[in-house]
Structures are given as structure tokens and as C-alpha cells.
């Protein structure tokens, strides 16, 4: 039982990272109908940003500072991924609005370019990011069930991000504009909203969220140029299961995939577990093609 609880806990913690990446993907897809295959690479970019911040701290700052590098790494990952996302939107994405298939191919090409770029800069082998000392160790629930601090920290970090996203989307002027553009682009523009600018900022924001997800992943293992490809399938699954364009759906989808993955892997084995989850998601989508939460939006129906 304890092993199972620990597995579930770990599963939710990992899937909370997907949730973050998936939210970025869901927002950009909901807004622009762009299927961004390069989204995973922004996870990778965020991870390397954390790696660079770590190197900077260990080389240039007194050793006593090292324990705090992670607090600098989080915003650095967000900013680097966000800025690169913004550039990608300006250079490529904005020429692809409304062309889902073209956007699929073009962003796939972009993802390969970004991977190659990472290989050229950081080398092909994986690199390690050393976690700060205070994250090593575990919270003792009772002998037999210890929750690793790293995983707890990741969950807290994701919850904090969710709260920020919620306020941004539902309590700020900017969020109101994004939702207006999502629900009815033509009407939003007719009310004076510069929809193109909203698109660019939102794309950058979604990429930044993927960056934070990448930063969190550095706590769980070594990172490499193909980090993003390992996670993009799960991320897409979360988005599709949750219902495209729905934030609550994305959160629910993340939980379901996380617990489902671990439960089935626990009952069977890693490979079979993945296959089963994948099959279940496909069956579910046969029954509800629009996912768990559908938003009734004319712009999405078109």
C-alpha cells in the first residue's frame, strides 16, 4: 500500500509538470489554433536555462549562494523560453494562423532546429543539474512512506504557478482580453483589442510556462537536447483529454493522466501501463471527442 501511495504521489508530481507545460499549449492552441510541435523544446530550453544559472552560481558566486540558485533559475527559465517563444511567434507562427496542418509541419521543423542548436551549444550528451542541498531528503509521513522534498517542491511550485495563471487569466485586464480573443476574435478586435499583439504575448507566456516546466524537470534527472520530445506526447494527451482551450480541463487531464499512468504501471509494467493509458484516452475521446471540459465557443466550433 505504501509503495502504491508513493508511486501515486510521484505520478501526480510528474504530471503536475505536464500540467504546466500543457497549460501553455492549451492557451496557445485555444487562442490561435496553432498546433505547436516545438512546445516540448521550450521545456528543454527552460531546463538548459536552469543549467546555465546553476553553472553561473557555482563559478562566479560564493559557495554559500549555491543553495539558492534555483530561485534564480525559475524566472530565468521563464524569461529565456518566453523571449525565444516571442521571437518564434514573430518570425514563423504569425504567418501560419488558421493553417493547422502547415503550422504542424513548420513547428516540427522548428523543434528539430532547436534541438540541433542545443546540441551545438551544450553537446549531445546529457548534462546534470545539481539540486540544492535543502531539496535532498524526504518528508517522513510514517516509517515506510517518505515523500521526497523535491517532488513536494515541484508540486508547490506548480500550485503557485496555477494561482498566478488563474489571477492573470480571470482577474486581470490582460486575461480578459485573452479570453475575449479566444471566444470571439472578430468581436474582440471590433472592441479595440489588438489581437495580433495579444497572440504574440500569449504565445510568449505559454512558452515561458513550458520553460518553468523544464526548470522543474531538472530536479528529477539529467537533461539533454531531446528532453522535449520525451514529454510532448504526454503534454498533448493532457490537453486533448482535458478539452482544448479549457484551463480546468487541462488541470483535470493532468491529474487523470498522472494517476492513471502510475496506477496502471504499478499494476502491470511501465510499457504496458503507457499503452493502456493511451488506449483509454483514445476510447474516451471516441465517447467525448471534445474532452472532459468543453467550452461552448463559436470561435472553436468554426
Amino acid at each position, binding site marked *: 500500500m505504501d509503495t502504491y501511495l508513493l508511486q501515486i504521489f510521484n505520478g501526480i508530481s510528474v504530471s503536475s509538470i505536464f500540467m504546466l507545460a500543457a497549460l501553455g499549449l492549451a492557451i496557445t492552441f485555444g487562442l490561435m489554433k496553432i498546433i505547436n510541435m516545438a512546445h516540448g523544446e521550450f521545456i528543454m530550453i527552460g531546463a538548459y536555462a536552469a543549467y546555465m544559472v546553476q553553472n553561473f552560481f557555482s563559478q562566479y558566486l560564493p559557495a554559500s549562494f549555491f543553495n539558492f540558485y534555483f530561485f534564480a533559475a525559475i524566472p530565468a527559465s521563464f524569461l529565456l523560453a518566453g523571449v525565444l517563444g516571442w521571437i518564434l511567434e514573430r518570425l514563423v507562427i504569425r504567418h501560419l494562423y488558421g493553417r493547422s496542418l502547415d503550422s504542424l509541419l513548420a513547428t516540427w521543423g522548428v523543434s528539430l532546429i532547436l534541438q540541433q542548436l542545443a546540441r551545438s551549444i551544450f553537446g549531445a550528451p546529457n548534462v546534470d543539474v545539481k539540486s540544492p542541498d535543502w531539496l535532498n531528503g524526504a518528508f517522513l509521513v510514517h516509517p515506510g512512506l517518505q515523500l521526497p522534498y523535491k517532488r513536494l517542491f515541484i508540486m508547490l511550485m506548480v500550485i503557485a504557478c496555477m494561482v498566478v495563471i488563474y489571477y492573470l487569466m480571470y482577474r486581470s485586464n490582460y486575461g*480578459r*482580453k485573452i*479570453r475575449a480573443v479566444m471566444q470571439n476574435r*472578430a468581436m*474582440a*478586435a*471590433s472592441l*479595440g*483589442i489588438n489581437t495580433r499583439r495579444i497572440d504574440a504575448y500569449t504565445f510568449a507566456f505559454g512558452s515561458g510556462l513550458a520553460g518553468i516546466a523544464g526548470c522543474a524537470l531538472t530536479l528529477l534527472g539529467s537533461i539533454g537536447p531531446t528532453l522535449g520530445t520525451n514529454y510532448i506526447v504526454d503534454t498533448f494527451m493532457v490537453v486533448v483529454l482535458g478539452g482544448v482551450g479549457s484551463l480546468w480541463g487541462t488541470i483535470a487531464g493532468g491529474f487523470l493522466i498522472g494517476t492513471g499512468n502510475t496506477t496502471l504501471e504499478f499494476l502491470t509494467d511501465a510499457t504496458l501501463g503507457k499503452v493502456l493509458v493511451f488506449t483509454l484516452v483514445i476510447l474516451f475521446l471516441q465517447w467525448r471527442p471534445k474532452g472532459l471540459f468543453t467550452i461552448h465557443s463559436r470561435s472553436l466550433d468554426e
Partner: protein
Amino acid sequence: METVLNVDKLQAYYGESIILKDINLKVQEGHIVCLLGRNGVGKSTFLKSIMGLVRTPSGSILFQNKELINKPTYFRARAGIGYVPQGRDIFPQMTVEENLQLGLEVNNGNGNISPEIYELFPILKEMLTRKGGNLSGGQQQQLAIARALVAHPKLLLLDEPTEGIQPSIIQDIGRVILQLKKEGYTILIVEQYLEFILNIADEYYVMDKGNIVAQGLVSSMDQEDIKSKIAI
């Protein structure tokens, strides 16, 4: 008197099919101008071309003597054009209050919703926290007009405000338009319901198959002739 809107030789297309062939239309400051015509002749397309929502490869749209034809939609809204589309286009997932606040976006979201809006549409005040999508058709229409008025547009475009709405609310909307006229608003209103505009509008235009086929002052209008031109 200043000409607020001056449309000249305007053409509009959906894809490759031409919808508006050669439209000339003027709206003077403080006037209420009505555009009449059968279903499918291009009235809504005309309002959309003023907003920049359809392709208009040739012609001119002067708004307060400034050319708008190549400007993006949001720029036109910010220049002072308020638009109430035929389908109302309320944001269904947002509350009434949020819908109204979006009306302030022409000023980057600055400013407040003036109490006058709730005096014109008392029903909205009671519904501020309801989702736009849960309102009745008539309430959505009032919300759409209110949303356009929040920023005090220099020109208000109304597309069939009486369509599919119960008679009592049609009367309310008629009263609101007369009130706006008293306050000096300039309005271009698309209608098929002739009686509704008779005591509201100053001038009329009749559109057929993408062209203007009649125009004049409502006071000297030959009602039977116009009726035959817009009857189905």
C-alpha cells in the same frame, strides 16, 4: 455640419465572390441613418467592411476625414466606431460586467462604466454577475448596445437590433435610440422592420444585390415604394 462617415465606391468580397459592388453612403454628425434591404443583399457585409472584418480591395471609407480602408479592425474601433453585430456576439463565457468592461478596451481598459449605461438599460445592473451566454436574446441585444456605448463612440453601427426580439424589448430599444439621438449620437442602423425606423431615422438608404438602389429623407419617403423594394 460635419460628415462623420463618407463611404465611396466601396467593394467587398467573401473569398472570390463579390458582395458589395459599388456603395456610396454618407452619415452626417448627429444624424440617424438607416440602411434597408432584403435578406442577403449585403447589409451586414457593409457594416463589417466599415469595421474591417471583410476584404475590401477597392473604395474609400473616410471616418472624420481620415481614411480607414487599410487600417486594422482594432484601430477603427479606437478611432471611435462602436459596432453591434447582427448576432450580438456577446462573449458567452464571460459575465455581463466583463462584457461591459471590454467596451473600455478602446481606451486600453482605462475609465469606468458610466452610471448612464445602467439608466439606459436597468436590466443589466441586476445581471452583472450572470454569464453573457445565459441571457435571453433581448437582454443580449441590450448588453451588446451597452457594450458599444461604454466608450462613447462617435459613430454607432447597429445591425438589425430588433431581429428575433420580443415586442416589449423592441420598444425599449427604440426609446434608447431616441434618447441617444437627443444626446447627439451619430448612428447607422441596418433594419428590415420599416415601422421601427420611421420615427427614429433621419435618412434612409435601400440596398439591393450589393448596390444602393434608393436613398432620401425619411420625412419624404414613399412608404409603399420602399416597402415593395424591401418586401420578401
